[in-house]
């Protein structure tokens, strides 16, 4: 029941060997490729802390069969910035606005906000709430998350 395939993650081809065919993309990212930015919580699509982009589309990686996305472009939170010294505009806005409490939901939110602002540089409050409706924050810091998204959007609009 094991097989070998290659995944393209953040622009790099990664060999996955001896993987059980039932492994989710979330499991492979964390346990086989050591990319632990993507968080493992509900494993049933309810919380979006495992959100990644597959060919540019926002997806819950827990609901993706890893071996079925061979050849597709996978972007995780690690692929959205150059590390702690060089945060993306969205990440910096989360820090500056106190939108990070325990931090567990943050990577999924960062990926979802990148996806939102790519499609809509000037979202309304309702647009943001709708776009993030699948992301659960158990510290319930939604007010500051909302503020961070608007701050990031504003900065991205003013620095083309």
């Amino acid at each position, binding site marked *: 029941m094991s097989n070998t395939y290659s995944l393209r993650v953040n622009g790099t081809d990664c060999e996955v060997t001896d993987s059980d065919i039932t492994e989710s993309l979330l499991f492979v990212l964390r346990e086989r490729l050591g990319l632990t930015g993507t968080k493992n919580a509900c*494993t*049933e*699509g309810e919380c979006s802390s495992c959100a990644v982009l597959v060919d540019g589309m926002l*997806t819950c990686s827990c*609901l993706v*069969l890893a071996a*079925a996305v061979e050849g597709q472009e996978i972007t995780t939170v690690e692929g959205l910035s150059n590390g702690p010294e060089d945060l993306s505009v969205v990440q910096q806005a989360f820090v500056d606005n106190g939108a990070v409490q325990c931090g567990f939901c943050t990577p999924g939110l960062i990926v*979802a906000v990148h996806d939102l602002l790519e499609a809509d540089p000037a979202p309304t409050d309702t647009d943001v709430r*709708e776009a993030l*409706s699948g992301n659960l924050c158990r510290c319930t810091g939604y007010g500051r998350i909302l503020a961070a998204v608007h701050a990031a959007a504003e900065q991205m609009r003013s620095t083309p």
Partner: protein
Amino acid sequence: MNRVVLPLSLQEALSTLTADPDATVLAGGTDLMVEINRGMRRPTSVLALAKVPELRRWEITPNRIHIGAGVTYTEIMTTEIAQAAPALAQAARTVGSPPIRNAGTLGGNLGTASPAGDTLPVLATLNATILLQSANGQRQLQLDEFMVGVKRTCLEPGELIIATELDRTNGGQEYLKIGPRNAMVISMAGVALVADLDTRSVRCAMGSVDAGIPRALKAEAWAAERIDWDNGAAIDPAVAQEFGQRVSTECSPIDDHRSTAAYRRHAIGVLAARALNRVCSPKRNGHV
């Protein structure tokens, strides 16, 4: 076979399934992966449909809409399908969250065949035909022939759902559902309703209140006689109110972890009345 197969054509998908009829069919994975992650299912081989172009297509003709099984909720909401089948787009918008709607498909909602599947009442009101295909040929079924019980379909080994065909209608369509919050909820009760100005008929179907997707045939006929079809389908609000009560008697809800039978029946009545009031709006029907 012990592997994941990603066919690039429908023919390849069907021949793979003929050779390995026990292969687990994977579309968007939003139902199947939950079961796999929970250890409820352990497939030894998987047929992944994401790259089968025939299943990803849709086509809109003057009277019917053809939607491939692999078309996602996001596509239903954001393409011309939304104008051609407004209630289907309304149902799609209520499913899960953006990442769930990006992955989940119409074919997967049918394959799961849950009475809470949000698209199913809409399919029932738009006279849906479900197209199934195997290496031996094609079958065309109505929803109540396809879905034979709670999470039970008549799919045979080696057979795939390939598409759904729906009527286009002239007049208002609604899909309304009740759940504990506005996002990410499995419906506790849902109503799809169509008032067809051409045939002067009403069609109403219900979700989450029966083992299947019941139509409210008696209430439909009762309402059709009371709508003022010559005046943009105007209706007396008291008639809509009574319609709701009548609809709510044509289902058999149960108590479970999501809700009670009594609440579900009440909710169906409220939703059906609200939906009829909305579709029977002369203004909305272009009659001023």
